[in-house]
Every structure is written in structure tokens, then in C-alpha cells.
């Protein structure tokens, strides 16, 4: 057989099972696009900005758990991808970015649209490649898939110079598609020590993170919770690992947790951390996190064990495999006293200040939306106040139900990630809660949503401000509100109409739920404009850098 490098790339991607590739063509990746145009099994999704393409691919990867691919050209095409790559790194998402590069002979000459994307992506990828010859592609493409999906998943970048894309090579056969490395058995000694701690704990708490969702360990985690009687908290990335409305679920921990969750963590004598990285948004001041607890830390990445918090027992392994080993060995414990204590904490504090009857409050809007959706729906957010309101109020009940930019906190994530989720799972309803600050960072992808007929529902909470930053100024900068509100009012309904999106406006309506219901039933992409009061804050809140017990707001006694 004889083929060009570009044709080899497309064939190898087909053999990996790739069906959709978002991207944008340009001078340096035209051979790839020419080869892609002849593919019968891969559909290209033309984004309006490379960051949009990166997040569309991320949306596909986040809902399916399998590596997904996006394309960009050299120079600005590649630099526009960087944010989506860094985002995938921090949330451990298997993303494969294939960028065109100027021809090998021009590398290092400051050629038109040349940038050292290999060098630029070293810190934000799990691994990256600069392909020097077409023959290398037979190794590099399957390797990229193996690396992206093995162990702790992450992004991989493959930079392919234009002459390599055009280079013809003769070859006799195809390599095997790249697959994740096999899962190793957890260390028996660590398992034994963990079991001793679990079975002797009086006040244990299970702490589940994104790794549980990545490993598909939610169902087993739930069995462990119920058998060992473990009150369970989840990180932002872990939400849905077990249903957040389960009697043993304590909701999210950390900066925007319910007070009783953080206070229970103060008292626990054993913290079983699974698939978490002790991020400071979850732990607060880490030296003061769970001061009375022994710690069992289960993670697939050996680099996470003892990194921020020294574990009494560290177990390196796939969370699902580890939990399945622990499950038959843990004793059934009711932990009656401990659960009663937590219930009493819960009764002392109410978590929301705005459980008012007003149907236009952010929390009420989220709950009304939830009442119209089943657990099959995918919920996506952008970044800011609306993200925390959604995390705190939406009843997440399964893994991969909630897509959010946790680690990098990228405003602009929501809309393109929603499009990706809808492309990968056309049978699921996809609802994106966004804000007026975030939506503007990738609003151009409304055009992509219309073209692709992805019926994403964007609920746009508009307070005409960078609400979360404004909240920080209000609370920690002496109420000096500076450059966090907009002086003009953008007419989002008109703009969305201009993109060809179906629009709804909740301004002044008496029955927002009815309008949400109509929008959710539509087969088209919709923008639902929801004006909200700028005064609403995300409470409670732990000041950045403080210990989790120092919560502002939310310390409201129900019966005082």
C-alpha cells in the first residue's frame, strides 16, 4: 500500500473508531482536510473558533469517557486551542489535538503562521509529539490514544508538519488501534491496612472525586457507601458519583459547601479519599482539613498520593478495581451515633438563603429546570456563580451527567461542551446553564449549534456582571466594585435570533417553568434568557485560603 501521511492519519483515526472531528481548516492542515473529505465514517464539525472546537471535542469525551479528536491549523489555530487543552489537563479529559505545522524545512524560520506549539503545550498536555516523518504516524497515532486513555486520562497533542502530511510512504499493514493499558491489581498489603482502618472507624467520611466518574466506579461506590454506612461528600468533579439526594450523601464539600458538610469533615476520624486530588477549592487551607482524621487515599496517579496531604494508607490503582476489592472485606456498620450527629448539624444550618417563593431566583430556576428533566439529561455549566448554584442545587444522580470546567475554571466552556455532548449523545437532552460573562467568551458557537442541529438548551442567567468576581470584591475588597459590571446591556435574545437560535425570555413572566418546558421540548437549539438580580451571591463561602470552618453566610439557624 502507498498513502500520504494525511491519508494515514485519517485511516488510523477511523480505525480508532472516531466518528466526529470538530475543527477549523487552515493553510498548514489542508492535506489532512483533503484526506478527511474522502472519509465515509468521520464527520467534520466546523467550529467558529478553535477553542470552540477543542471544547466540542471535550464535551464528546466527557460524556462518553473515550478519547476524542479535534483539528486546528498552525500558528493562531494552535494557540487558540491552548485553553481547551489546559482545561482537559486539569480535569483529566482524554483529548487528542492534531495540529498542522509549517513544513519541516521552514520550522525555526519564523515562517507565516509558525509557532512552537510542541514547546507551548509541554506544560498543558499529558504528552505531545512533533511528527518528523509520515512513517512515524503508525506509532504516534495509536500511542496518542493509548496515553490519553490510560491511567489518569489527559490531553495529547500531535503536531504534523505540512510536508509530513504530504509525504507518501509504502507500507504493508496497519498497527493495532491504541487502547488503554490494562488495569493492575491493587497492592494487597495496602488493601489490608485500609480495611483495618475502615472497619475500626467511628466517624468515617467517604470523599469522592472526578476519578470515580472517570473510572465508572459510581455504582460500586454506592454499594460501598450503603454496606459500610459511609456518609459521602463529593467534589465538584465527583458530583453524581452517587446520587446527591441519597440519604448518606453530604453534597459538595469546600468553598461553597453546605456548612454541615464542612463541619462534619472537621469531626471525622477517617477520610476515605477516592479519585480526588485535595484541591484547595475542596479542602480550604489544606493543613487544617480534616484535622482529626486518618486518611486513606485511593488514586490511579501515584503522583497524587502524599502530594498535598500525607496519607496513612495510599492505594495506587483504578478506583473501580480498588472498591471492588474492598467491598467484600468491609463490615456492615450502621454508624448510628455518627449519622445522628451529622443530622443534627444539618438541622442546625440551612444551606440556602434564597429558598424564597420567587421563581426567578437562580436556585429556583435550576430546580424548576431539574423538575422537567430526567436523569438521562446532561447538565453543562459555564464558570461563575451560575456554576456553583447549579452544582449546589441540581439533583445529580449519575456519573457523566454533569459537565463543568472544574480545574481550570474556563468561562466559555459551556456552549461548545454542550454541542459536543449533544453530538456524542443525540438521544440525551443537553441543558447548559450559563452566565452573561461566560456566554460571550464562545457565543460564536451558537452558529455551530444551529448548523449541526444540536438541540442544546442554554439557560442564560443574566445579571449584566461578572457576578463571581463581583462577589469577591463585595466580600473581600471592601465592596469596591470595579470593572465587574457591564455599562451596556447586550440584547442576547436578538443576538441569538441573529444566529438562527430559538429564543425565549423569562423577563417578567409569571410562569418561568412553563416556558422552560416549551423550550426543553423543542428540537432546535434554544437560548432561554433569564434576567437575575445582581445582588444574588453564592453562599455560603469559605474565603480563599481560609480553613473550611470559616464560612461566610449560610450560618442561619432554622429555629432561632
Amino acid at each position, binding site marked *: 500500500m502507498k498513502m500520504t501521511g494525511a491519508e494515514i492519519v485519517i485511516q488510523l483515526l477511523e480505525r480508532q473508531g472516531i466518528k466526529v472531528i470538530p475543527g477549523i481548516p487552515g493553510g498548514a492542515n489542508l492535506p489532512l482536510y483533503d484526506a478527511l473529505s474522502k472519509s465515509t465514517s468521520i464527520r467534520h464539525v466546523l467550529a467558529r473558533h478553535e477553542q470552540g472546537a477543542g471544547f466540542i471535542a471535550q464535551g464528546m469525551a466527557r460524556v462518553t469517557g473515550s478519547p476524542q479528536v479535534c483539528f486546528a491549523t498552525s500558528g493562531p489555530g494552535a494557540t487558540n486551542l491552548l485553553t481547551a487543552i489546559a482545561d482537559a489537563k486539569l480535569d483529566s479529559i482524554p483529548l487528542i489535538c492534531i495540529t498542522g505545522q509549517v513544513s519541516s524545512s521552514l520550522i525555526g524560520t519564523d515562517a507565516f503562521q509558525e509557532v512552537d506549539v510542541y*514547546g507551548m503545550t*509541554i*506544560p498543558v498536555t499529558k*504528552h*505531545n509529539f*512533533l511528527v518528523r516523518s509520515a512513517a512515524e504516524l503508525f506509532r504516534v497515532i495509536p500511542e496518542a490514544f493509548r496515553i490519553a486513555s490510560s491511567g489518569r486520562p489527559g490531553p495529547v497533542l500531535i503536531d504534523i508538519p505540512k510536508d509530513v502530511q504530504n509525504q507518501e510512504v509504502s507500507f504493508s499493514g496497519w498497527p493495532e488501534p491504541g487502547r488503554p493499558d490494562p488495569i493492575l491489581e491493587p497492592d494487597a498489603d495496602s488493601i489490608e491496612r485500609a480495611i483495618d482502618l475502615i472497619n475500626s472507624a467511628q466517624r468515617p467520611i467517604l470523599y469522592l472525586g472526578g476519578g470515580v466518574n472517570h473510572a465508572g466506579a459510581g455504582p460500586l461506590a454506592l454499594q460501598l457507601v450503603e454496606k459500610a454506612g459511609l456518609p459521602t461528600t463529593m467534589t465538584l468533579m465527583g458530583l453524581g458519583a452517587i446520587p446527591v439526594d441519597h440519604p448518606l450523601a453530604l453534597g459538595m464539600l469546600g468553598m461553597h459547601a453546605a456548612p454541615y458538610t464542612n463541619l462534619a469533615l472537621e469531626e471525622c476520624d477517617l477520610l476515605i479519599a477516592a479519585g480526588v486530588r485535595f484541591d484547595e477549592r475542596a479542602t480550604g487551607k489544606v493543613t487544617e482539613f480534616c484535622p482529626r482524621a486518618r486518611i486513606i487515599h485511593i488514586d490511579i496517579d*501515584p503522583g497524587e498520593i*502524599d502530594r498535598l496531604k500525607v496519607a496513612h494508607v495510599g492505594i495506587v490503582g483504578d478506583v473501580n478495581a480498588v472498591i471492588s476489592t474492598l467491598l467484600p472485606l468491609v463490615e456492615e456498620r450502621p454508624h448510628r451515633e455518627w449519622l445522628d450527629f451529622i443530622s443534627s448539624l444539618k438541622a442546625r444550618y440551612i444551606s440556602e438563603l434564597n429558598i424564597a417563593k420567587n421563581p426567578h431566583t437562580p436556585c429556583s430556576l435550576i430546580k424548576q429546570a431539574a423538575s422537567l428533566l430526567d436523569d438521562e439529561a446532561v447538565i453543562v455549566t459555564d464558570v461563575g456563580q451560575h456554576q456553583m448554584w447549579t452544582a449546589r442545587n441540581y439533583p445529580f444522580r449519575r456519573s457523566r451527567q454533569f459537565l463543568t470546567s472544574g480545574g481550570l475554571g474556563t468561562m466559555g466552556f459551556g456552549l461548545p461542551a454542550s454541542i459536543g455532548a449533544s453530538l456524542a449523545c443525540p438521544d440525551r437532552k443537553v441543558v447548559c446553564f450559563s452566565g452573561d460573562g461566560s456566554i460571550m467568551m464562545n457565543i460564536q458557537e451558537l452558529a455551530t449549534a444551529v448548523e449541526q442541529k444540536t438541540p442544546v438548551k442554554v439557560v442564560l442567567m443574566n445579571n449584566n456582571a461578572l457576578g463571581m468576581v463581583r462577589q469577591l470584591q463585595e466580600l473581600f475588597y471592601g465592596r469596591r466594585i470595579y470593572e465587574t459590571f457591564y455599562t451596556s446591556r447586550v440584547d442576547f435574545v436578538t443576538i441569538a435570533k441573529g444566529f438562527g437560535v430559538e429564543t425565549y425570555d423569562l423577563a417578567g413572566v409569571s410562569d418561568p417553568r412553563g416556558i422552560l418546558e416549551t423550550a426543553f421540548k423543542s428540537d432546535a437549539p434554544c437560548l432561554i434568557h433569564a434576567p437575575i438580580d445582581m445582588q444574588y451571591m453564592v453562599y455560603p463561602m469559605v474565603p480563599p485560603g481560609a480553613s473550611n470552618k470559616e464560612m461566610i453566610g449560610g450560618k442561619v439557624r432554622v429555629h432561632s
Partner: protein
Amino acid sequence: MFILESEAPEPVRAPCRSTVLQLSVNNHAGVMSHICGLFARRAYNLEGIIVMPVGDGKRSLMWLLVKEDQRLDQVVKQVMKLEDVIEVKNQGIDKETLAQLESFFMRADAQV
């Protein structure tokens, strides 16, 4: 006035032992950036580096002179996660060779 970096006060350093990590790595143009970048990102100082291709040139051997503080284990774990790193050794490195190299560098510096 332009202030030269050397005019800034010397940072006070806690005395700690140095050690030499020996890395076996894939030899290609980007591998040095991967290793050095990792140390820089994790704010862990590399005191010295020696790299030579070995065998048929597909692999290189790297010697990294580093301070042996309590973060070393963590940095080694991170180094081992790099795809191009085949093996990391922290023992049995021939320190005499390194001492000879040090005096070689000092002589070279004296001639600058």
C-alpha cells in the same frame, strides 16, 4: 537604572545534601524540554545536567544534580510519569565522575 540580577540579595539557602538522579530517556529533540520544564514548573531547582546519547542513539542517559529535600520523592514521581522517561535511579551513581566534571567546569570557567 538597570539593575543586574546579580545585585539582588542572595537567597538564604538551607543547607541540604545534593544527590544525582540517573534517568534513562528516549532520545529526541523535545525530551530535554520535557524534563527541564517539569522541574521548573514544580519550582524544583536543577543544579546540573549532563546528557549523552547511549547505544544506538535511541536512548539517552541523563544525570540530574538536585538538592535532596523532602519534595524530592514527589518530583521523582512526577518525572516517572513522563512518557519519555524509561527509568529513574537515585542510587549508585558515580559521584567521583561528577566531582571530576565539577573541577573541569571550574577550570573552564576560570578561563572565561
